[in-house]
């Protein structure tokens, strides 16, 4: 299990255990993390699981693929550290990951 920390817009942190191989979005939905909507169910076909990756973790998490970049066009307040959480695979290397959920999903 890998620990994932979700920091919401108000600064409150929620820490959950995520199974390696699942996605950060799936772990969030399973644990009812507020601020992650995932309207399309993880098909990379909307932008409602948008998160900001903590600067310290950006290298490990990596950059979005071109398809994900296209979907991020539909996000709100997209920043250089923006990712769609359905496209981040949980692994042991991401144990302790910190992501921020945006004020609103598009």
């Amino acid at each position: 299990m890998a620990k994932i920390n979700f920091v919401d817009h108000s600064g409150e942190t929620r820490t959950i255990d995520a199974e390696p191989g699942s996605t950060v979005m799936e772990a969030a939905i399973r644990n009812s993390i507020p601020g992650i909507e995932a309207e399309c169910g993880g098909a990379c076909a909307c932008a409602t699981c948008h998160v900001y990756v903590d600067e310290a973790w950006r290298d490990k998490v990596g950059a979005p693929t071109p398809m994900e970049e296209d979907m991020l066009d539909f996000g709100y307040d997209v920043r250089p550290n923006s990712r769609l959480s359905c496209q981040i695979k949980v692994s042991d290397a991401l144990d302790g990951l910190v992501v921020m959920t945006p004020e609103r999903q598009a």
Partner: protein
Amino acid sequence: MAATPGAEFNREETTMSETIKTDVLIIGAGPCGLFAVFELGLLDMRVHLVDILDKLGGQCAELYPEKPIYDIPAIPLVTGQGLTDALLEQIKPFNPTFHLNEMVETIEKIGDPLFRVTTDAGKTFECKVVVISAGGGSFQPKRPPVPGIEAYEGSSVFYAVRKMEQFRDKDLLIVGGGDSALDWTLNLHPIARRVTLLHRRDDFRAAPHSVDQMRALVSSGQMDLRIGQVTGLEGVDGQLSGALVKGSDNQSYKIECNTLLPFFGLTMKLGPVANWGVKLENNLVPVETASFETDVPGIFAIGDINTYPGKLKLILSGFHEGALMAQKAHRYVYPDKRLVFQYTTSSSSLQKKLGVS
């Protein structure tokens, strides 16, 4: 270019003043609506389908045309588009008529049962049975979560272009990087006073030739391209005067405009289902599980839009629901005919309908 799926089917695209009479009207041409055509067709019922999208297949075609689906019985792997194409092949013998790019607005009960159904394109249908297979509701343009945008909708902010003339001599701000944003930029720039295209990055999803045309207009000074994201709007009484934008360098600036066209894709909304007179429960339509009929006799609901104890939102469940729905629908369409249960494998009459005997 690949052939448009369903191109060989009937399409009614013009506005008609006369009433279209049919046995069954299906609302929503996703996988469950398409398969219902098959089950109804085997029982000799003629079908028209209405869908708000410009294509067939519903979510399968709009959200995940290339994504694999693994839980269709006997098909280990199929894509959303593959499933749609296969269903269209399967229902071809029944020759349904599709009405795309249209939204059903009203359903009125005028008989026992007989319904009058109208669409936003001005069409009127008369049918004995209505099948709601509307999935997650209707796909509608997404409203970007810009604070206060609601106050400008319909007066200065538009999510679709119905009449181009409406935008003559306007200072237009078009936001987005896909085909809708680029197409409207190119189409409206000759009639608008000035067009500014705003996108969050200098890289576009739209077709490369539209992007090239846009860049040519920018370099000849005929329109503007800005990079950034809208954070706020300025104006009075619904009349927009400018948009506040955060650039890629985090600097804020303002773009003067009196009309905003944001193109942020589609989202699913329940839409007019709430006005159709059927009972709703948490934005879903409750049905009984012998025939998937709603609380209004003659109106059925199948697929993701319905709810009942034990409901699973699976395509395979929607197929089953369509088969049982057709049995009950037959009683309304042919009240005097006895329904004999038959298999496609052995019934010569079913095979005749399928065009295989």
